[in-house]
């Protein structure tokens, strides 16, 4: 029964690399995503529906003096919505369900690093968010008869920073979520505050000055500003750098908190 022979002592035959492990985790998670109809609806359908439904509301806004148009409000708003539903709310549930099902504990017993577990499990969600962002950008541009973004690199930068922040945010939210049932609710505070105050659909310029002052510093505000800057093309280099740093700082804070607070198994 040679198949049962252990590897020779000290041998490191074909060690796995981070890329291979991430791919294996991502593939399994994608299979699970495709088998979960409820998750698919939330992650795929909801952002599109929301985006198109917001059109009436955005048209009703008094954008005079903000330098913005319906298109430069709606396009970044639609991408942000896609990020939130495909990445944030989706992953809070994924992390909590996997934790309560002892899957995270099981994964930690093997060669996978902790960060790989969180990132690998997020890969399908990130892919969905990316594809959806592209489709929404193209679809809304046609639908609103808008111009192509003059600074597309800022859109890409905003998407990447938003993804990183929301993966870390989802893990952090999961740390404070006890059960799969409560994962249906715990994503709401961050989602609602961001939707209301970070200028996802209603620009922060429309807020009272004192409120806007605070809202500017919220975690998702710099991501919104970068996305919008991609479509308005009026974001200077200094502002781009400042916004990028602010987004990174918030992401760093979230990563640090995840490192300290994330639980890998259910409370016993």
């Amino acid at each position, binding site marked *: *029964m040679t*198949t*049962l022979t*252990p590897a020779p002592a000290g041998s490191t035959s074909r060690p796995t690399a981070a890329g291979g492990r991430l791919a294996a985790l991502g593939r*399994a998670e994608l299979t699970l995503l495709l088998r979960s109809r409820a998750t698919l609806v939330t992650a795929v359908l909801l952002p599109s529906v929301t985006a198109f439904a917001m059109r009436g509301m955005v048209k009703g806004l008094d954008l005079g003096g903000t330098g913005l148009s319906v298109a430069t409000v709606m396009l970044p708003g639609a991408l942000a919505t896609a990020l939130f539903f495909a990445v944030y709310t989706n992953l809070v549930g994924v992390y909590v369900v996997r934790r309560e*099902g*002892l899957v*995270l504990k099981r994964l930690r*017993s093997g*060669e996978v690093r902790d960060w790989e577990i969180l990132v690998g499990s997020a890969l399908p969600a990130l892919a969905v968010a990316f594809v959806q962002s592209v489709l929404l950008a193209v679809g809304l541009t046609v639908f609103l008869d808008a111009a192509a973004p003059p600074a597309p690199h800022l859109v890409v930068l905003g998407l990447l920073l938003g993804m990183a922040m929301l993966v870390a945010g989802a893990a952090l939210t999961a740390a404070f979520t006890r059960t799969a049932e409560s994962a249906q609710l715990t994503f709401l505070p961050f989602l609602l505050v961001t939707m209301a105050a970070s200028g996802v659909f209603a620009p922060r310029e429309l807020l009272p000055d004192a409120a806007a002052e605070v809202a500017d510093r919220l975690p998702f505000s710099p991501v919104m500003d970068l996305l919008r800057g991609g479509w308005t093309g009026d974001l200077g280099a200094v502002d781009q750098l400042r916004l990028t740093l602010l987004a990174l700082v918030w992401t760093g804070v979230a990563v640090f908190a995840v490192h300290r607070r994330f639980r890998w198994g259910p409370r016993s």
Partner: protein
Amino acid sequence: MGNARATDTVIEVAGLRRSYGAYEAVRGIDLAVGRGELFALLGTNGAGKTSTLELLEGQAAPSAGQVRVLGRDPYRDRAAVRPRIGVMLQEGGFPMELTVAETARMWAGCTSGARPVTEALEIVRLAERRSVRVKQLSGGERRRLDLALALLGRPEVLFLDEPTTGLDAQSRRDTWELIRQLKDNGTTVVLTTHYLEEAEQLADRLAIMHGGMIASAGRVADVVAERPSRISFELPPGHFLGDLPPLAPLGVTGHEETGRSVRLETRDLQRTATGLLLWAADKDLQLRALDARSATLEEAFMHIAKDLEAAR
């Protein structure tokens, strides 16, 4: 316990402790396991077996003491240790909606030098269930899937936490056979179990844990030898315990008389039995319900549990 130590020590543990808040689950453990050895950790539920095993696997850092697996700290050096060990947790932790093959494929992608998925499933006889979702597997099949994953990387050291819990009798025998083959092929195995028969069947050496400590350890025969053998029989009417030849020279260390029934404890079963039977033949007596037996691991186990409980 150092007498049975192999020259090539694969696992070394000294003064190991583990606390959960104010509760100390592991209270100072020392043990060593040699290459190719099968070591069993026995104990009742809550004895600290799983807590200990998790420290050996590097799942958590001990609150005090040292662990060395393959010469390294399994917690701090997990990147170096994990590719060389296989771990079977007490509870599966598989996503329910993946199939058996998908689960194994995911694990293989995260395992250095992984054997082909089909081969791993064949070893535990799950190949024909490869397309079945995990949620549809029986408890025993899930244990076997767990074992298949633990074996995927051809580990040098295998940690099995209650590998046969929930298995039917046949699957349990199959798993024992498999574990034996692994051992014969040089794999070092540490397993926890609360089935005494399992430890008796498989273990080269074992440790009985109780209250977070090792109460007794050594080869199965050594642990059992700590307990006396027993002879019981019924005396014919008109005969009493006092009619027996002097007990101490026969090696009897204790006796008990209930009605006609007599029970003798001895450290030397052959001498006591011979003396008793010669006496009966000499007197032309028939000893009814005669029973002579060595101590079993179960007796040793029950005795340790009772002793320690009383000592609390």
